[in-house]
């Protein structure tokens, strides 16, 4: 299981096996109903490329905030 914390909103547990073969962080983001283009994915507080295979069990997802 991977714990996905959408910062300021909700925390969900996602089973990577439900996301197909070799799921990526982009797949994980889609599983919590966001587009990879509207969030940053942090592992150990460091941003990671969304096409990287999921290799952590706790992930923070930062939503983009509109406005200047």
């Amino acid at each position, binding site marked *: 299981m991977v714990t996905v914390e959408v910062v300021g909103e909700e925390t969900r547990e996602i089973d990577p096996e439900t996301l197909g073969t070799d799921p990526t962080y982009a797949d994980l983001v889609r599983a919590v109903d966001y587009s990879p283009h*509207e969030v940053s994915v942090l592992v150990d507080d460091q*941003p990671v490329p*969304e096409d990287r295979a999921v290799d952590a069990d706790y992930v923070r997802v930062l939503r983009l*905030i509109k*406005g200047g």
Partner: protein
Amino acid sequence: MDCDKCGDEAVMHAAYSGLHMCADHFCRSVESRTRRRVREDNLLPDDASPDDPETWLIGLSGGKDSVVLTQILHDTFAEDPRVELVALTIHEGIEGYRDESLSACLDLTDDLDLRHELVTYEEEFDLRMDDVAVEDPMDMAPCAYCGVFRRDLLSKYAAEYDADKLLTGHNLDDEAQTALMNFFEGDVEQMAKHFDASLGAFPGAADGDGDRDGTPTRVSTDGPFVPRAKPLRDVPEKEVALYAQLKDLPAHITECPHASEAYRGEIQQLLFDMEERHPGVRHSIMAGYEDLAAMAARAYRDGGGPEYGECERCGATTTRAVCRKCSLVEAVQTAD
């Protein structure tokens, strides 16, 4: 995953270019795209000199976009005697939200030792957006009032500070959304205005009426208004946010409590979906839109654009007897 430039750990993947980049190469890439846009748009004219410098007013809200713009412009031009930067923050009267972002603006401008000015809707118009959002006398979204008030003050203070240009932090997503909204509304004349107001390059002394290095130039500047430009408009919103995070800039990241641009939100979702399936679609939308908007500007504005006069109440430049800002202020005051 490794950086395609140096082999260090990558922090991002740009699907539209296929590149993975480490923090250092990613930040350099954002800076170089911004500086290239400043050059291609010819923001700094050949005749700017230490004796007669350009003044650029930056609209600094304290959000990620304007903070990143301010930082990069400062890093680029702080030592250049041909450019003077002034940051302007507008407090709309939104309890909590703008107070926090003002503090981000102060942190940044103190840190950069940059001239910073603050104006408020309360002092300028005797109103606060928190009240306008509740009273809503024109039955509009709060952003529709706020945008008119903000543009009025940006123009007013750009003129007051004798600014040559007004620079805002609009990013690639903002501009691609606006382009699609103009398409979907079928508003070609608005495309022409958009082009001359902020998209076209500034003509240089040697350019004549032609394009500048392939970048179309403005047909007519936007009347007596201080011309605007958007140096971050080649950088996707997500990358602006990542830059702010990696550079640990004091950007304020809370959503405006009155944010309500429903139509723009629909377009934003559409673009997210399209970009997922067709990486690079935002860039290609803007490339085509800029060419079309340039043609529209030549068709609609070759005569110099609309006739401007002065608002009979506040003296602001307008095509009406009473400017839109004064009409809205009156509607709000009457509803009190």
